């Protein structure tokens, strides 16, 4: 079977490419692209949610360069001769009908230890689209025994000629991240539920990102405007980004609140240039919307009108919509421009939006340059993680952002980037 498998798998993969392109039209996302691409070094256990038999075919093409062995039930393995042959070719591990026979765990562990890749569908049955069934926690046992990474894989299950499949490959995790003692039943259950919530979170992010296509007519004015404007002012707006956090500013994907101090009218332009690779929406005071032409221009560029005099619930909802669609939102939490002096107190709106949309906040300090055409230095810190929605905690989140921006200000001052 090894010989047949070595010949047949490449043939099936190459000849199946047109099917993959037409039937799956797969769009792959990564939880953290830098850490997880489709290259898997050594043995690994892929854990995926399960919607249909096509899930495995999708994985067959997703990890194109690897032979991924599925763990399948006795019933599926012996459904018909063609399926049995196919599953044997791909090296499927059979789960016995006897409930006490857990030999498949030993087989999977042995294969993983030899550097093979195994996929398991812990739900055991096909779940309806958009839903999860309870996960059996045997995958934790396999991963723990084999001391291998678990690669979470989320698929939305949209397969068909007129549908598009969205898949997210998660960052590798280890069983010990979720369970301390694998033999402890309660600990195992808790670990399993934490892993499932991680999968659900991946599902939510995939859904958000799938709503952000690369090109839409609605976004055309924003993209065109950005390119058109910057074609003219590019040489004059020079930006130097100092990444003071543990991650580079241009590695963040998905929804993000960019929070900065506000020193000048040019701040949005400076930040748009710094985050040029992303569609950056920003909140603009009602007063700036003076006439119809300007309204259209600002809206087209991604502006969201906000009335600072009253609690503008519509503006907050619009901003949350933007974040729910997986885009980035620029906010100046001070609420007004402060050209000189200390950073003002931050408004809580930023924390509310972060909590409601489960979005992290990226603190940024913009150092004041002497002239508008001088180089702009911006300092990027570590993200402030969103906290669950609780009105008592909102102030502390806003204070934490403010405190981080002040720490960045100190770095700017120590580095001699501030003009006194």
């Amino acid at each position, binding site marked *: 079977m090894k010989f047949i498998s070595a010949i047949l798998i490449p043939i099936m993969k190459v000849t199946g490419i047109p099917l993959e392109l037409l039937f799956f039209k797969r769009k792959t996302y990564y939880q953290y692209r830098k*850490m997880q691409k489709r290259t898997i070094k*050594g*043995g690994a256990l892929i854990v995926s949610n399960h919607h249909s038999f096509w899930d495995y075919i999708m994985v067959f093409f997703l990890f194109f360069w690897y032979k991924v062995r599925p763990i399948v039930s006795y019933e599926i393995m012996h459904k018909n001769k063609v399926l049995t042959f196919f599953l044997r070719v791909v090296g499927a591990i059979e789960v*016995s009908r*006897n*409930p*006490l*026979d*857990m*030999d498949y*765990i030993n087989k999977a562990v042995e294969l993983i*230890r*030899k*550097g093979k890749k195994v996929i398991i569908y812990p739900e055991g049955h096909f779940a309806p689209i958009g839903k999860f069934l309870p996960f*059996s*926690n*045997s995958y934790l*046992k396999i991963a*723990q025994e084999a*001391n291998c*990474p678990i690669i*979470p894989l989320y698929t939305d299950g949209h397969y068909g000629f007129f549908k598009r499949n969205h898949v997210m490959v998660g*960052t*590798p*995790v*280890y*069983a*010990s*991240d*979720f369970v*301390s*003692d*694998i*033999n*402890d*039943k*309660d600990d*195992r259950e808790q670990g399993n539920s*934490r*892993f499932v919530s*991680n999968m659900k979170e991946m599902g939510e992010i995939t859904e958000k990102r799938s709503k952000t296509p690369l090109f839409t007519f609605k976004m055309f004015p924003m993209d065109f405007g950005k390119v058109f404007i910057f074609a003219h002012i590019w040489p004059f707006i020079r930006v130097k980004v100092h*990444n*003071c*956090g*543990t*991650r580079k500013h241009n590695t963040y994907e998905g929804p993000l609140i960019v929070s900065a101090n506000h020193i000048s009218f040019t701040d949005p332009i400076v930040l748009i240039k710094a985050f040029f690779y992303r569609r950056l929406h920003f909140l603009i005071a009602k007063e700036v919307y003076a006439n119809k032409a300007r309204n259209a221009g600002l809206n087209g560029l991604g502006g969201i009108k906000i009335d600072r005099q009253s609690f503008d619930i519509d503006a907050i909802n619009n901003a949350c919509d933007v974040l729910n669609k997986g885009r980035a939102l620029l906010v100046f939490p001070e609420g007004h421009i402060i050209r000189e002096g*200390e950073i003002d107190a931050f408004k809580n709106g930023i924390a509310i939006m972060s909590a409601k949309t489960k979005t992290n906040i990226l603190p940024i300090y913009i150092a004041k340059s002497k002239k508008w055409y001088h180089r702009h230095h911006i300092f990027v*810190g*570590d993200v402030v993680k969103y906290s669950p929605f609780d009105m008592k905690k909102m102030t*502390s989140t806003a*204070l*934490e952002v*403010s*405190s*981080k921006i*002040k*720490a960045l200000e100190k*770095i700017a001052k120590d580095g001699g980037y501030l003009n006194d």
Partner: protein
Amino acid sequence: MNVERYQQKIIKKYTKIIDEAKGTFEEIFDANFSHNKYPIVEYSEDGKIIKISYQEMKRRIVAFSYYLTNKLDNRRDLYIAINLENSPEWIMAFWGILMSGNKPYLMNLRHPDTLIKKSLNDLGVEYSVDLHEENKFGVKSVLIPEFLGEIPSDYKYEFANEIALSTSATSMEEKICFYSGKELLSQMTNIKEILKQTKEVRRTYHQTIKLLAFLPFYHIFGLITVYFWFTFFGYTIVLLKDYSPQTILSTIKKHEVTHLFAVPLLWHTIEDELVKQVKARGPEVEKKFYDGIEKSIRVQSKHPIIGPKLIKGPFKEIRSSLFGDSIQFCISGGSYLRSSSLKLMNAIGYPLYCGYGATEIGITSVELSKNIKDRLRNSVGYPLASIEYRIVDNVLVVKGESNCHKVMINGKTIKTDEYYITNDIVHQDETGRYYIDGRKSDIVIADNGENINPDVIEELFNFSSYPVNCFSILGLSKEQEKETLSIVIELKQTALKKDEEAIRSYFDSINSTLDMTQRIKNIYFTFDQIKNPAAIKVSRKYLKAHLDSGDIKLFTSIINSNEEYKQTSLTNTLIKIFAEALRMDEDKIKPDSHFLYDLNGTSLDYFTLLSMINEQFSLEIAFDVNNPLVSVSDFEKYIMENKK
């Protein structure tokens, strides 16, 4: 920039800082936290990697020091205990206390509560820094708040210049050592020498250096080697969630840890597990494995540069089941390391070096030879730059600027002498390398007057295939007679008479190969714990004290010790294991209850049960489709029939 060039630049910069520093904690702090964007710590939380940069940590430290200053009403020069395990909060508390003008007391959390209370009382500690809940040691708690608050721009701080450190948990004595900034800086001067002497310590993986915080920061080995030596140059510390073997292995792989500093217990456990696994795969694989080790040593000693790279391939499977490929440099310290463990680790491609130190003198030497043959001699190398060694009556005496300036023993503060007597028996070879032969108090004098080191004999025994928790070889005397070399073996509760016979025959087979003077005269068994639960190794002093007090009872045979031993003890043990696997009360489990139908167990619970029983009884029970074992009585019958 090229990593090598970058490292040289950074080392040059920071060694200059060390040379020019006067010896205050402020200088160390400023140098330590001048690496802005690099992560100081990283750890996993629900599968996600969390990183905290040096600049963020600095912000938290300043905020905490301000919070502490307010909390203590500007009181200064107090000893404040840190009641935290390795965590970002520990670093924050350590520097925050110093910055507030107070002195941190790094109390050893592995000490028993009574000893901790006594040392806190003797040191006059009023406050301790706690994380989530108030401490149980009778001192006021300063809980670290979730949000530390704003730091006013006019906040001025002045550092204290002393830290207090309790000794390791092995001795269980109250001993606190005091270090000033200058002494700690001398410790850091030593890293300069190490970096000069060897390039191995600077080896990176994916252009980074990451250290696993396996050793607690309140231990001198952890504080100096893991925290101070490496954070000073901007490297990253990887924190562990817990100390279970699986967590350690997966954390190393996930975070791509490059440097691992640990106590011999870790290396011994790895060796025992590996040997067990290899044995289980048959004599052919075992022979191949040991041949491979010998060949690997030969290749590495002949080709010190290419050799370590060449041997990675043949040991790929073993390496992937252990730490993976990222580990570049390991140090063992704290107690005697078995030569077999040292050989095994080096042979499979994890360069392991031996070091030496003590709480009173810090880290004083480490073997840094590139040549594998030098490493395998189990030497601790040459004394570091700030250290001078002398041997007086075979005992090592240490002089150095980095020794602590005072010690508190049982409430009495004593100023330390210029020379510190370590009470470790050492010898020096022709190349000037030092070798630790054992503790002076552990040495047993043979009938012919020869000094026998029990550590050397201990390393010849490996009881991992038997139901033995741990063992110790020491000199024991009967009714004021002369001490004779004896072995005390702590058996698992499930050990049977048959096991005892197997252990005896194994023991005799090894003992008979020893010289007459080195042979162990008495063999004792016990079911009582011979190791302090908080300690990482068996302390002979602790064992002797508990033998004298009668807390540990020895016997020469299982039957003698347990005359009323009945079949029921096995049944009870099995019921306990069933209850643990099912998370159920023991009363509900009857000997004939069916695992699936009566006890509602799942298939995974059954798998867990099998592995627990295999572990407990040192058996290999595989699932048999035709005759599945499903009840306590089934297992009982099987164990009685199949036990060696």
